[in-house]
Every structure is written in structure tokens, then in C-alpha cells.
């Protein structure tokens, strides 16, 4: 029969020699190998104490951004929801009232902004679609939760802390500390 590729190798079917049938040399060799592993460096990362660093391009949990004065950047245009292939984003828009200029950057803002983390595939298309630099994917992942409802993240979970009123929490969220 003609071989399909040149990588074919004939399997040796000849009966085992006496030394091979003893098994002992092979067993001793195997035991030497396992013994040598005692002295090997363990690659384990002891998770809660030690964390694996994420790469800078890691796409993790979403963050709703604020500008330098601590105003929400999101204008509830809905482009992220349109871009989302998993249809994980829902939002409701509202109009900024005259005394809310310090809270929202533009006249329209998202009164409700929810991302279902169970649907989200962390593709980052929302980040690309956003014209206002309002949504970013951070370098963390969604922690475990007991209910499905717990995975629907609202504005409380998504918004980055206000840099003017909570500068420490903001720096921590930014990873500056």
C-alpha cells in the first residue's frame, strides 16, 4: 500500500526481549523520572494571594468612564448596544436637568445602563463603537455570583469612582496605585 504522507513509520511488532519482559528497568526509569520531579519548580500560582498579571490588551469587565471633572461621559446614544453581537447591553436615556451639569457631561445621559455579564462575550466591540470614550474593558473579570440576576451589572457596578470626590478609589480603579 502506498503511504499517504512521508511521515508514516513502521510500528515494531517484534516480541519483547527478555530485558523488556522483565519490566524492572523500565519501571526504575519511570520512577527516576517521577523522583526528579520532586526537585522541579512548581508552576502553581496560589490564586487569592498571588495573581497572574493580565496583559495590557486583556478584555475584562466593562467600566463606564468619567471625564476629568467627574462627569459621566455616556450620552446613551445606544451605539454600543447596536454593536454588541451578544445583545448584552440595555440602556434608558434621560435628559439632563439644569442643576445636573456637574453630573453629566452632555445634555443626554444614561439613566439606566445594564450589561448582562452572562451574555457578554468580552469582544470589545462596544469599546470600539463608543464615540464618547465612555466605555472601556478593564483588566479584571466578573467574580462568581449566586444568582443570574447578580450578573446583570448596573451603573453602580460599572461606573468608575468619581476622580474629584473619591480620588483614592478612582486611582485604584485605574490601576495607578
Amino acid at each position, binding site marked *: 500500500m502506498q503511504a499517504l504522507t512521508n511521515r508514516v513509520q513502521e510500528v515494531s511488532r517484534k516480541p519483547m526481549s527478555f530485558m523488556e519482559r522483565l519490566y524492572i528497568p523500565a*519501571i526504575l526509569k*519511570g*520512577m527516576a*523520572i*517521577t*523522583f526528579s*520531579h*520532586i526537585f*522541579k*519548580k*512548581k*508552576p*502553581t500560582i*496560589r490564586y487569592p494571594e498571588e495573581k497572574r498579571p493580565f496583559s495590557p490588551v486583556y478584555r475584562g469587565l466593562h467600566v463606564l468612564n468619567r471625564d476629568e471633572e467627574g462627569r459621566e461621559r455616556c450620552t446613551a446614544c445606544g451605539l454600543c448596544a447596536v454593536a454588541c453581537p451578544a445583545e448584552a447591553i440595555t440602556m434608558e436615556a434621560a435628559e439632563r436637568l439644569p442643576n445636573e451639569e456637574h453630573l453629566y457631561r452632555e445634555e443626554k445621559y444614561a439613566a439606566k445602563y445594564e450589561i448582562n455579564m452572562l451574555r457578554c462575550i468580552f469582544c470589545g466591540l462596544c469599546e470600539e463603537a463608543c464615540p464618547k470614550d465612555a466605555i472601556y474593558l478593564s483588566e479584571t473579570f466578573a467574580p462568581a455570583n449566586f444568582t443570574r440576576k447578580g450578573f446583570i451589572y448596573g451603573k453602580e457596578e460599572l461606573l468608575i469612582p468619581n476622580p474629584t470626590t473619591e480620588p483614592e478609589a478612582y486611582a485604584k480603579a485605574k490601576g495607578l496605585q
Partner: protein
Amino acid sequence: MTLLAFDWALLIEKLVLIAVIVFGSLGIALYTTFAERKVAAVLQDRPGPNRAGPFGLFQPFADGLKLIMKEEIIPNTSNKVLFILGPGLAMTAALMTCAVIPWSSHVELFDRKIDLQIADINIGILYVFGVVSMGVYGIMIGGWASNNKFSLMAALRGASQAISYELAMGLSLIAVLMLSGSLSLKSIVGEQMADGNLWNIAYQPLGFFIFFICALAECNRTPFDLPEAENELNFGYHQEYSSMKLGFYLFAEYVNMIMSSAVMACLYFGGYDIPFLDESTLAPNIAALLGVGALLTKIVIFIFIFMWIRWTIPRFRYDQLMNLGWKTMIPLALANMLITGALILWKAGA
């Protein structure tokens, strides 16, 4: 008044000894389970259990608590009495072996000479063999009472494996008995400690090798763990067991391991003898304590080798197991016995 003439101090002494030895071996077995997990981890480049307490040292207690808290399930169609008897028998048989093992020489306490051995009976090693073969009943009864074909098959495997390997084990033992001329474990150890005598391993390397392999098979340790072959028999004879009854089966395996290590240390490695040291120059109490330490060290080394083998070698196929037992081990043991006998006669004649 004959009752009162009884040596009550002896009774108390033996009771204390029994309690210490039984609970001591249980405690060691507890930590053997932990050691097994740690050894497995280290051989596989993992850190192993390290959450419960410092270095994970409380892990065996956590395991035990978990097993006790589990729901106890007794299958409807099983024979209830036998179902409960199975693990009990396995555990009892495993623990009973420790009665004849000489843990050390003797200590002198309260003007009494206390032997650190529960019973120095003159058929010591035969007793060990008898009790170890009773352990098979634990597997057989458990597997049969479960009313499950996988359990039954595993039980049959366990029984036939134990019978096959006990033969070779007994034959390799006969050569040791010819050397020492006694069945008592204490005098076998004494013979090896005597001046000018080496440990039996020096005279019986092949015998020890056969005995060791058979001990692996008797303890159902890998590569002979066919009765609990996970991949073909779904866990084997203790498949239907849950909670602490399962714990007893698993625990009995570790107790068996300690006991067979102790027996091997006594038969071939001088028991509580410390190499290159004349114990008679020391105070008897210190010598006895050092002896316990020496025996425990030997046991620990054997247990490590057991585990090392387990995490290296895959399981035998059933026909390979039987071939090895009947066609290799028994002829080798017979040859070893013949050669030893011939050499002893030749030496006596010369």
C-alpha cells in the same frame, strides 16, 4: 480469690499499650492520607493541599469531618447486615495486625519491664497472614452485599488477586523463617540484631523483592489496584458506599499499608534495630525510644516508596496480573526457597 491473684498491673499495662498502639496507628494512617496527597502533588509539580491550617496540616481532619457529614446511603436491595459488616471487617482486620508487631525492645517503668509489643506469640507471622487474609472478607462481603455487578466483579477480582499473591508471599516468607528458625516476629528481629548477623535483606534480596511486590498486591495499591479500577469498574467494591463507611474502606487501605510496611521492616530490615549502633550500650529506656523511632523511620520510607510507585506505574491488566502472580512470582519464590534451603544445609554440613 483466684481472680484477685491476677496480675492486674499486666492488664493495665497491656490496655494502655493497646490504646497507644491502635490510636497511634490510626493517627499515622490519618496523616498517611495527607502524605499521599502531598507526595502525589510533589511528584506532579503541584503544591498539594495547603489551605486547612499551616501547610494544610489539618486537611485529614477536614476530610474526616466531610466524610462524617455526608449522607449515609444504604441501597434498598442490599443485605443490610453484611453491607455494614463489610467496612467494619476491613478496618478490624487491618488494625488487628498491629498486635504482634514488636514496636521496640522494652522500657523499664515503675519497676516493671514493659515489652513494647502487645503480644509476643510464637506464631506471630502466621497470625499476621491469617488476619491479612481475613481482610479479603471485608472486600468480598462489601462487594457482594452491595447488590451491584461492578462491585461484585471487583470483589471477585480482589479475592482472586489476594489468594494468588498470598501464595508467593508465603513462599518467600518461608525462606526467612528457615534463616531465623522462628515464627515470632520478636525473635526474627532479635536474630537480625544479634552480633555478626546482617539484616535479612542481605541474605534474602530476591525474597524481599517478591514479598514487596506481593505486599503491594495485598494492600490493593497501584499497580495492583484492580479491585477499585475506576475506569472499568466505577470505583469497584466500595461503589455503593457513602459517608464514613466509605471512609473506613479507604482508611483500612492506609492502615494496611502501615502494617505491611511494619511487617516488611521487621522481617527484612531489622525491625527496631538502628544500623551501626550497639543498643545494649544505651540505657534500656533510651534504646527503646530510639528503636521506636528507627522502626517508624523505616515504615515512613516504605510508605513513601508505596506512594512513589503508585504515582509512577499504571495499573496492570487482569491477565497480566494473573500471569505475573502465577507464572513469575510463585516459581521465583519457590526457587528462592530451594536455594536458601540448600545453602543453609550446605553451611550446616560444612
